[in-house]
């Protein structure tokens, strides 16, 4: 009877610690992954008019591959759990939506269809499935990294397509996203015009997005490998000896004649 009670109690305590661990890791990933993404690709995520077909398909996925790769290192190599990338994509999406709803819409009153975030969930599922099927992080980097870049734009297209419909506004041809943009001029608007509305994007018929996605996949493949290694480094379990302990051990070693044979 006592054994049964102890077993039940052990399972209860184990579950509680597991919840602590899972929620803690989820909150840290939400906080720091979102921080990473908003500071490397944030403007493209915040605003609909920034979601162009030249820079957005490069900058957003190349930045976003970081945490999925590092988390896959932990969950796959240590626990054989094939959902590190999907977990990160979902946590990022949750963090972004919480902010867009409460901050961008409810506080500063931008319409939600102007500030909705992009999603990485479909590409993350592909990345996880690839790692699960191949069991090889190098293959996942080469194929999964490329697919990460290629899949980003098509998997987000369904959300932004209605805003790329051409309209005539005060005699000028522009997109619906542009019209909304001019209704909500922001302090970053000049940068938007300078960065996004440049080069041949508007006049170079076709090909812009495909080439951007191709380049994005190339960079994502490289960065997947880099961030997998970063995950391994941050997941290390190294302990250092404090100065006092190291000094004491050195003193004891010397007392035992550790350096008796050394020549000066």
């Amino acid at each position, binding site marked *: 009877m006592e054994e049964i009670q102890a077993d039940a109690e052990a399972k209860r305590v184990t579950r509680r*610690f597991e919840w602590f661990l899972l929620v*803690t890791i989820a909150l840290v990933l939400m906080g*720091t992954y*979102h921080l990473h993404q908003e500071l490397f690709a944030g403007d493209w995520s915040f605003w609909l008019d920034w979601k162009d077909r030249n820079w957005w398909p490069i900058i957003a996925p190349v930045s976003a591959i970081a945490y999925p790769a590092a988390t896959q290192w932990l969950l796959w190599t240590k626990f054989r759990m094939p959902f590190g990338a999907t977990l990160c994509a979902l946590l990022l999406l949750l963090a972004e939506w919480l902010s867009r709803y409460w901050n961008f819409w409810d506080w500063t009153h931008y319409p939600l269809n102007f500030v909705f975030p992009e999603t990485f969930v479909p590409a993350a599922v592909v990345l996880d499935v690839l790692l699960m099927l191949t069991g090889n992080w190098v293959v996942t980097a080469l194929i999964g990294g490329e697919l990460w870049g290629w899949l980003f734009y098509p998997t987000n297209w369904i959300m932004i397509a209605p805003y790329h419909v051409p309209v005539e506004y005060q005699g000028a041809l522009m997109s619906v996203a542009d019209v909304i943009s001019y209704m909500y001029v922001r302090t970053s608007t000049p940068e938007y015009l300078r960065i996004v509305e440049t080069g041949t994007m508007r006049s170079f018929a076709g090909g812009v997005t495909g080439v951007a996605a191709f380049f994005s996949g190339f960079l994502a493949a490289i960065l997947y490998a880099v961030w997998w290694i970063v995950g391994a480094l*941050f997941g290390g379990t190294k302990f250092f000896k*404090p100065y006092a302990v190291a000094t004491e051990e050195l003193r004891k070693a010397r007392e035992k004649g550790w350096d008796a044979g050394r020549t000066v």
Partner: protein
Amino acid sequence: MLQTETTTTGVGLPEKSAFSWRKVGVFFGALTVFYLLINVYLRLFAFSKGLDYTSQDYSTYWMGMLLTEFVVEAITAAALWGWLWITRDRALDRLTPAEELTRYWAWAAIVLSYAFSVYVGASFFTEQDGTWHNTVVRDTDFTPSHIVEFYLTFPIYIIFGVASLIYAMTRLPQFATRISLPYVILIGSPIMIMPNIGLNEFGHTRWFMEELFVAPLHWGFAFFGWGGLAIFGVGLQACPRIMALIHHVYYGKPILSASEVLKDPTGTCDPACCYPASEA
């Protein structure tokens, strides 16, 4: 070296209440209410009293809040960290497994507080700062959103993070005699976000920049935020020890004693030991 090599005697079961959600829930409820109230304050007075740094209202509602934050944070940090240090365990080598397990529960609650505060500061209030700056032209480094984000939410996670580190180093054998590299990164790297504010504010003061959130001037925040990934290493250090303690306390499995862990904590970090009690 695995944890199964040595045994210790005198197993006592911890009280069921030692692993209660109630205290944790009350604490997190209070913390959540606190952040909600801060958000309410921001909504009430950011646009109405926080647009002109030279106004009397600004001094009253925002600079007054900033100074209050500095004072309360300094007192809280000194009191909490000082209390944790003064009440440290001076006989860790005699710590029983049951007591060690209950301490991991308290430690996990502090680390969770840290994680929650990191989310609030780095994610929610940082993007809030983004939408603020895209809406309002700044005329001071101490804008209302900064007074909440930089000088309130960031110090709060620093206070919790350092508190968790002190708790671990003074009460848990695994972290008492050796310095955990991932733990130092997990706490130290996000701490560096605070000094990085100096760079950020200098840049915004020196150059009248447009509010491009991805500007290289901001990348220091992201760089130091990467330290959050060290939660992987801390988890891989603590998880096997916690599971080993559960296996020992409830099933009588062999375990490294506290005094042995104090001598060499590296033997407690085998992820193979990190499996649930039901599989013991």
